[in-house]
């Protein structure tokens, strides 16, 4: 059973073993509007928790995506190059950004679970 955690910057991370799949939340894609371009990290890059690792661009603006946890980039979602709109349509599924091999699983403990993130987003209105 995989667990999903969330950041205050509206990234989600789904952990399965020592690999974490990362994307942006439904709230984030709604705020951004139509996504037209996603710049993903290179395979093998070492991402550091809280540091910029990708860029998502809507019609209006470019926004940074931060690594929710540290680790080595082991996969990127190549589909987004041709179909960036997947981020709007299915942000938690086909619109995933990249996968990391976890460097330190303890970092996950500092992230929000679904209930905590839901309350956090409520508080933004």
């Amino acid at each position, binding site marked *: 059973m995989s667990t999903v955690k969330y950041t205050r910057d509206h990234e989600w991370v789904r952990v399965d073993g020592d690999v974490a799949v990362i994307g942006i939340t439904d709230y984030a894609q709604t705020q951004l509007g*139509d996504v037209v371009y996603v*710049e993903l990290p290179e395979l093998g890059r070492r991402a550091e928790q809280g540091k910029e690792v990708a860029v998502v*661009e809507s*019609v209006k603006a470019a926004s940074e995506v931060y690594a929710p946890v540290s680790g080595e980039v082991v996969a990127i979602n190549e589909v987004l190059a041709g179909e960036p709109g997947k981020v709007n349509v299915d942000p938690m599924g086909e619109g995933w950004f990249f996968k990391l091999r976890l460097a330190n699983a303890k970092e996950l403990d500092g992230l929000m679970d679904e209930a905590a993130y839901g309350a956090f987003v409520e508080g933004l209105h």
Partner: protein
Amino acid sequence: MTDAALQKTPLHALHLELGARMVPFAGYDMPVQYPRGIIAEHLHTRAKAGLFDVSHMGQARLEGAGAAAALEALVPGDIKGLAPGRMRYTLFTNEAGGILDDLMVTGAGDHLLLVVNAARKAEDFAHLERHLAGKARLTRLEDRALMALQGPAAAAVLARLAPGAASLGFMTGAALPVDGEACFVTRSGYTGEDGFELSVPAGAAERLARRLLREPEVLPVGLGARDSLRLEAGLCLYGHDIDETTTVIEADLAWTIQKRRRAEGGFPGAAIILGELASGARRKRVGIRPEGRAPAREGTEITVADGAPVGRVTSGGFGPSADGPVAMGYVAAAHAAPGTTLQLLVRGTPRPARIVPMPFVPHRYHRG
């Protein structure tokens, strides 16, 4: 989530009811998009018709026997030669040949109608009043809303509510009742499509907007798509593509200076502007097509192959109809020819791009 300090247009409540996302723009709380989103709104405008609230823009009437002459002292356009019902795009210039604002001027019989940018209206009207010197009288039309109906279906839609509208030519205007409301209608816009702008009594604006939105071809369109539509059409946005530091010739707007004004001068910065017209400007506003899919935003540095900077992007983003990134900016004259290959420094990475003629999407103005 609305800010009490922001002004509201007469259509504000309607925007909220339609589910718009509101943003501050030029001191107004304005819709950036509705729930369908910017791309859908943009493509709908090019396919059918979009309704835009542009009531934040400044509308004014200039009257008196010396109105045209007084305005000509501030702009390089031929205003004295503007026949009744004709409309012209022109520019308030400064002594350095730069641009204080761009505006639309329409001859309305015994007076001129002016539409200026929202962010510049206070400065523009003060500037005008300082220079009228009793030769003309300026009246701000603060009791009027302004709506734009844009797209290939705009003429058919408006003809149902205003039978006279369809006979207007491009860049002409007339006082016309629209569904019984006393409007001033021009066949003009900011999208590259056929369309109209309707100056409407503020009290009638919401009813008329609802009436237009009941037509099957019409959807509401926000400022987000207004920006992507005008960028694809190669049209300047004041404060970005033109400002006090860009001359009329650098901005590639020499076409706004008619023959008589080229010969006579008599507008602020005329010596500089006419000098550049004769011998060329050192830089030029151009269209830029980035290779690949990454948009190049405003402020992006433009370089030649060896990395030497030659200019900067002034507007850039994704063009939904162009189906890719589009941009405009200024480059040194030596690099301004269409076909020239340059580089855009996007987040520190050089990316290839090409100078291209504008518009990015062909204009489809009414040429009946």
